């Protein structure tokens, strides 16, 4: 296989770069080692579009987040992606010292060109967010922050690239990078070699490992782990804006925010870890986040019960603490997009534009003429809950599968689930369905619809129910047919728990 541009990593950065370059007459292949795109840092974060009011505008990430704020609305409109922007944020403080920090943050925001920021007194603060802890004294309002669904966004970017001819290869891991005469030649993967003129390293947590295949590097990706609570939709009305706790040295502050789909997301702490696969939640961290932030800001939110799930995200932070968006120093045709921690989701469009510039600068005999039949949008998936009743009826008449509700918590039909399997980037497992159409995302967490979705996947993919996975690889849901174990001969272990 050969291509002009090979992108390593199917997170929001890889997908944005694919989307950015797909408008030109370039062959593009994106490789992703997981069984779906949006499986790393892009999947588990605050799902916010940061305005940049609380970020140092002098850093690269500061510049890019501000640039992206000018691009994101049009982009989401083109791609039929739900974006709520402006929504606005309030930073909440309890102490005099918080107020001092807020004043500094406000100065920073003004310097970054954010208009309409305002310090709030206690009365204003509680008028705007009546469910806040009554002890909260100070507020800093900022109007530009938005929210987005990172799965929908990343998938839309990649789907648009595929619609415009890019190839996305899932379950494909780069094992080595081939270099000749100080110029990249291609990659070795578990699925064979791919020749490429330019390679983009958007490997997220593994960007250091990929970059080190090319040359000696002066950075490392040190994951910073953050844990989150996701609350039931019935708590949606507890807040209006995205809420920051007062910032600390290591974090912009913890957040309690509404999601695009009407849940409440709260977190996250920051803990440096060595293991890039450490996605464990811990009771210590959850207790601490709950006590220090969630119940401190919104005392009504419970520790458990109305929690849909808790999860961990790993920020792909580099030892330089800023984005690294630059070509390799000693090898031609290799470009790093590394160290993309927060606000990476927001910065993606500007990062992709920078990457395009860097690709052009490589002078690798690439055809940057615009595609004649370029599609700037994508055909959006049908979401019945967004449609008027009459429109739903018309669709159901055409295809009765849209009238068969599979996921009762989120009202998702069989037709929508089958569509997800047939999209440009097909959903191949239960979690992939969940990220695309929300079946299993609700309060029963797939308890009722799981067996039904598993059957649909089995039929649509032409595989046995035993081969259907939760999230790709070996994450099988079922292990054997009934009776097979009881008929098994030999020395099976029947040991019980002993205390």
């Amino acid at each position, binding site marked *: 296989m050969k291509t002009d541009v090979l992108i390593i990593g199917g997170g929001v950065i890889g997908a944005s770069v694919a989307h950015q370059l797909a408008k030109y007459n370039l062959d593009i292949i994106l490789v992703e080692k997981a069984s779906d795109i949006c499986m790393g840092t892009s999947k588990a974060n605050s799902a916010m579009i940061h305005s940049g009011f609380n970020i140092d505008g002098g850093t690269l990430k500061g510049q890019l987040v501000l640039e992206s704020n000018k691009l994101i609305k049009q982009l989401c409109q083109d791609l039929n992606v739900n974006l709520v922007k402006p929504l606005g944020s309030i930073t909440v403080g309890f102490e005099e010292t918080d107020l001092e920090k807020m004043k500094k943050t406000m100065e920073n925001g003004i310097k970054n060109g954010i208009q309409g920021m305002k310090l709030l007194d206690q009365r204003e603060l509680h008028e705007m967010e009546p469910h806040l802890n009554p002890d909260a004294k100070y507020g800093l309002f900022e109007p530009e922050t938005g929210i987005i669904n990172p799965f929908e966004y990343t998938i839309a970017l990649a789907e648009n690239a595929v619609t415009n001819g890019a190839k996305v290869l899932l379950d494909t891991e780069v094992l080595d990078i081939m270099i000749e005469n100080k110029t990249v030649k291609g990659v070795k993967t578990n699925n064979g070699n791919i020749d490429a003129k330019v390679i983009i390293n958007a490997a997220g947590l593994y960007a250091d490992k990929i970059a080190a295949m090319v040359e000696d590097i002066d950075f490392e990706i040190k994951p910073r782990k953050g844990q989150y*609570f996701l609350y039931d939709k019935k708590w949606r009305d507890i807040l209006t804006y995205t809420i920051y706790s007062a910032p600390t040295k290591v974090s912009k502050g913890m957040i309690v925010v509404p999601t695009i789909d009407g849940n409440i997301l709260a977190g996250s702490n920051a803990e440096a870890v060595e293991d890039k696969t450490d996605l*464990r939640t811990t009771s210590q961290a959850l207790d601490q986040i709950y006590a220090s932030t969630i119940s401190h800001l919104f005392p009504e939110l419970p520790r458990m019960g109305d929690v849909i799930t808790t999860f961990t995200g790993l920020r792909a932070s580099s030892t330089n603490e800023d984005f690294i968006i630059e070509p390799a120093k000693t090898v031609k045709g290799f470009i790093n997009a590394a160290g993309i921690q927060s606000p990476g989701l927001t910065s993606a469009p500007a990062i992709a534009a920078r990457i395009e510039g860097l690709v052009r600068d490589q002078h690798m005999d690439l055809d940057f003429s615009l595609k004649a039949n370029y599609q700037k949008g994508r055909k959006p998936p049908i979401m019945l809950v967004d449609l008027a009743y009459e429109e739903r009826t018309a669709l159901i008449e055409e295809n009765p599968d849209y009238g068969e509700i599979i996921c009762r918590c989120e009202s998702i039909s069989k037709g929508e689930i089958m569509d997800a399997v047939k999209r440009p980037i097909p959903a191949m497992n239960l979690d992939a369905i969940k990220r695309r159409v929300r079946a299993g995302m609700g309060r029963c967490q797939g308890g009722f619809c799981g067996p039904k979705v598993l059957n649909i996947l089995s039929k649509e993919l032409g595989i046995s129910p035993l081969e259907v996975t939760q999230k790709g690889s070996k994450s099988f849901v079922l292990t054997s047919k*009934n009776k097979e174990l009881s008929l098994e001969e030999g020395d099976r272990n029947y040991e019980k728990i002993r205390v």
Partner: protein
Amino acid sequence: MKKSEYDLVIIGGGPAGLAAALEAKKNGVSKILICERAPHLGGILNQCIHNGFGLQYFKEELTGPEYASRFIEELENSDIDVKLGTMVMEIRDDKKVIAVNREEGMFQIGTKALILAMGCRERTRGAITIPGSRPSGIMTAGTAQSYVNLEGYLPGKEVAILGSGDIGLIMARRLTLEGVNVKGVVEVMPYSTGLIRNKVQCLDDFGIPLLLSHAIIEVHGKERLEGVTIAKVDEKLKPIEGTEQYVSCDTLLLSVGLIPENELSNNLGCEIDKVTRGPVVNEKRITNIPWVFACGNVLHVHDLVDNVTQEAEIAGKAAADFINHKMNKEEKDVIVTHDKNIGYVVPQHIDALNHQEQTIKFFLRVKNPDEEVRLIVKDNFNKTLLNLKKTIVEPGTMVTFNLSREFVTKDTSSIDISITKEQAQ
């Protein structure tokens, strides 16, 4: 949108909906419709292939599908309409129900009265925030029951079960019979939360240990579950350091509680009891909305289907009385209170002017197990209306009793229910 009119719409065709429909029919309601989201009537009973159903109601031991079929057969011989594969999307306060199915798309049903019988769902891992990684192989006991009994597939080979709820206990036995090694049931409380008979017949008879006052404090495994860490807990249910133990297993089933599914009722404006998580009702199972009734697990979680049937018959009869204008025009609310040993009582209030039935049926759950106690009912004049001896009470087994209607007069403003130690009397 297609429109139709009924006298009574029942949401849910499980045991509650079936019995309510039949009882309403017997009491003279002519146009009745059951909306059932599954392709079959019977609800969760269809996957409960074990026996033990109907001992009270039919005085014989039936399996879940057999129990349901008694009602389904009777229903098939009646003129009650049923829409299968039909999901109710919205109940509007102008007595219109919006539903969807394959054949009719979105459609509207007008009704005079409505019975909520949507059942309950299982509490998830997310809801109790069990820490650790997020591998496959973790599911609720009911989901496992559906895979095994309806689909014919096993969820694993080495199973740990968290929670001693009835479905977990039933699945411990079911999986053992399939050759699965059920390594034990871990229960955070110091007592089993399921029925005593299920502990005996599903765990003790198969040598499966029940670890009381233990919790699962972490799950392990990146793709498929590899094991769990269990620990003993103190009286505040906090894990005790040094008691951690790793248990290897490829499957974790959760049987940690059931939650009435009241999203439709909530959106309609039904007042919800914080403890039962079902609507607040009076003895006729009327919610705070006069044309809306509730019964079965959507009202409060039952351990015996026989009780569901009895409760559904109350709701079905009351809905019929409402439709046929047989209800007393005026009501006098009597509040039902209880002492702190009791978790909840249904109904939460009674109508002193209702003289349709001779007895009032109460359901309650205690908070802690106890032996040799007395159940005492007093009114606001401190007069003892009822004094019953109970040999054993425990949270996993609902306590039911009848109170004669004659004790509630127009002067009664509240009645109080308490459970106290025998010797205290």
